């Protein structure tokens, strides 16, 4: 069989989402797409740009500030045969809609045998004073609920692949975008490209330790892993991608190989998904473990707004490097001293981010 070179292009994470939405709307002429600000001049950080012009304002529309009812509307539309993508500029705003999500969307197929194909895009903020209620990583809440699927892409490729897979999945899917990823660049196929829900991705192979990352923390983990490689410390880095269902086989195989497990989680420590992964691996792969598994999750502290208070607050490559060294019993001043620093300034993902949100 001849391999045909796939056509690809360089896109940002935000552009990849726009590409996925446009691809889906072309494939399904009934699909609708709405959210507060979706067709305003900023178009949800560019992710919904031009969609209303291309597909019409009856299919792509701004909505009242009614997160709960508008979630119910998407469920009702789904029962009526119309799939939808609903977007919220912060995950925190969507907490008003937990009744519709948990009591109806997640239960409908189990109770009535009728599928609810909705995708809910939630954007997670960080830094630039986002503060206690514009920055919450509550993915473990959603992953707790039977009937929901939860994904957190970390690359433009997976942003497109997972969004298309989410949209065409017959179940409610929570699609979590980290605001710090919107400008990251990567190669993305032009065609309808899908990443299977429930599949994690090995982005670096090594025998010394398994690191499980998700969303923006995978970016920080990659910096740490590249740095450690220069000292011949070789990490298996897994990008989780999908939190529910979760790729247990891939994680378990890696733990069997390395005997060490570090899980990174951008959510609060107590009740974190990292805790769940560690519990399961400890119960089912205990005999393979050479040291106690560990997690780096956010402290059980609301994220403060102040530039001063958030210094050293986040999990970054430096903290990952020192945790790996600790788990491998490596006490090497050279490694620790040269470890990747926190971004300067620490509260933005890069020069491109000028606020306000």
């Amino acid at each position, binding site marked *: 069989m001849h391999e045909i070179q796939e056509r690809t292009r360089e896109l940002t994470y935000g552009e990849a989402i726009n590409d996925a939405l446009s691809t889906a709307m072309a494939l399904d002429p*009934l699909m*609708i797409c709405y959210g507060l600000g979706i067709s305003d001049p900023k178009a949800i950080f560019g992710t919904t740009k031009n969609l209303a012009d291309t597909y019409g304002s*009856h*299919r792509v529309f701004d*909505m*009242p500030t*009614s997160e*709960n*009812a*508008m*979630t*119910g*509307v*998407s*469920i*009702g*539309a*789904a*029962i*009526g*045969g*119309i799939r939808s993508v609903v977007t919220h500029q912060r995950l925190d705003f969507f907490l008003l809609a937990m*009744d*519709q999500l948990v*009591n*109806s969307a997640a239960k*409908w*197929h*189990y*109770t*009535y*045998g*009728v*599928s*609810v*194909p909705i995708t809910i895009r939630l954007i997670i903020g960080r830094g630039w004073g986002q503060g206690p209620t514009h920055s919450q990583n509550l993915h473990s809440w959603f992953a707790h609920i*039977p*009937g929901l*699927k939860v994904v957190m892409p970390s690359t433009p490729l997976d942003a497109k692949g997972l969004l298309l897979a989410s949209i065409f999945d*017959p*179940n409610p899917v929570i699609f979590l975008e980290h605001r710090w990823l919107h400008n990251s660049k990567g190669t993305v196929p032009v065609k309808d490209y899908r990443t299977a829900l429930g599949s994690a991705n090995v982005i670096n192979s090594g025998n010394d330790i398994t690191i499980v990352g998700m969303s923006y923390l995978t970016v920080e983990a990659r910096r740490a892993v590249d740095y450690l490689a220069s000292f011949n410390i070789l990490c298996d880095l897994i990008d989780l991608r999908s939190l529910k269902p979760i790729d247990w086989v891939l994680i378990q195989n890696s733990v069997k190989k390395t005997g060490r497990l570090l899980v990174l989680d951008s959510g609060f420590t107590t009740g974190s998904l990292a805790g769940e992964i560690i519990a399961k691996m400890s119960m089912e792969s205990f005999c393979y473990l050479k040291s106690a598994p560990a997690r780096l999750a956010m402290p059980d502290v609301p994220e403060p707004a102040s530039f001063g208070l958030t210094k050293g607050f986040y999990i970054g490559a430096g903290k990952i490097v020192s945790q790996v060294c600790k788990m491998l019993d490596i006490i090497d001043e050279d490694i620790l001293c040269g470890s990747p620093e926190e971004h300067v300034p620490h509260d933005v993902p890069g020069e491109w981010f000028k606020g306000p949100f």
Partner: protein
Amino acid sequence: MRDALNAESTALMLRLWKSMYRIRAVEERIAERYAEGKMRCPTHLSIGQEAVPSALAENVRGDDFAVSTHRGHAHYLAKGGCLNSMISELYGKATGCCGGRGGSMHLADTSVGFMGTTAIVGNSIPLGVGLALSAQLKGTNQICCVYLGDGAIEEGVFYESVNFSVVRRLPVIFICENNRYSVYSPLAIRQPPEREIFKMVAAMGIRVDSCDGNDVLASCRVAANAVHVVRGGEGPYFLEFSTYRWREHCGPDFDNHLNYRSAEEVAAGMETDPLARAELSLLRADSELQRVLANHRDCVRHEINRAFDFAEDSPFPDPLSVGVGIYA
């Protein structure tokens, strides 16, 4: 209804009486047999509130949508929901409309457009609006009936849903059955005394109407007008019907012993019985109808007997299937 019935309205009244009688008889049988302990789920009976769903059902099409609440038996039955499936659902049997996964508070029969009931106050309101949106987008000319109670008027999601339906001129009718109680909490402590719900809701830019929900012919006229307007593409409608719940909030019994409402109030509420009023006016119009009514009572009794036998004889779902179907 105080007017004498002519031939046409007698025929209409007879259909409405039949629908109401069937609902009443089903609910009374459930009440009668509840103590056997085989219907092991919270059950909210519609006894006394049969007129409104019968009036709506008379005016909608089979393919029109409806959604309802924890007190949804009457809405399900009036819309044409399968009785066997409903009783089996109360019994938790595999032949129930949800295969035993929902119980009394989760009823659906999508073959007649009855899309579901949910057990959280206000929860099904936006689902109905979403169904109306799907009809509008597909251009099917279907409408959606959203049943709710006076308690749901106090939920934020009600206002969110009405607002969106007005903005998008959606083909939806919100039907508020005001029975004056949210569980045991009277309207007087929940909403200001001078309020008339339908007038307040009118301020949102939606057409409204109100009616004595125990006068089934008047309710039917109000429903007919609303259905006509909504199907004509002129946007949503809100209807408020005064009703009265005879029995306890949840369960099969009368509840005068709880003293949250006076015996006089309950007696007065039962005095407005829509079923008795309908029967009286039918017999006044034509005493010969006595035989037709008796015949219907017999048919319904047999139908209910069969439904309970069907439920009793049906198997429980396989315990091993408990984890099946969480995802589509």
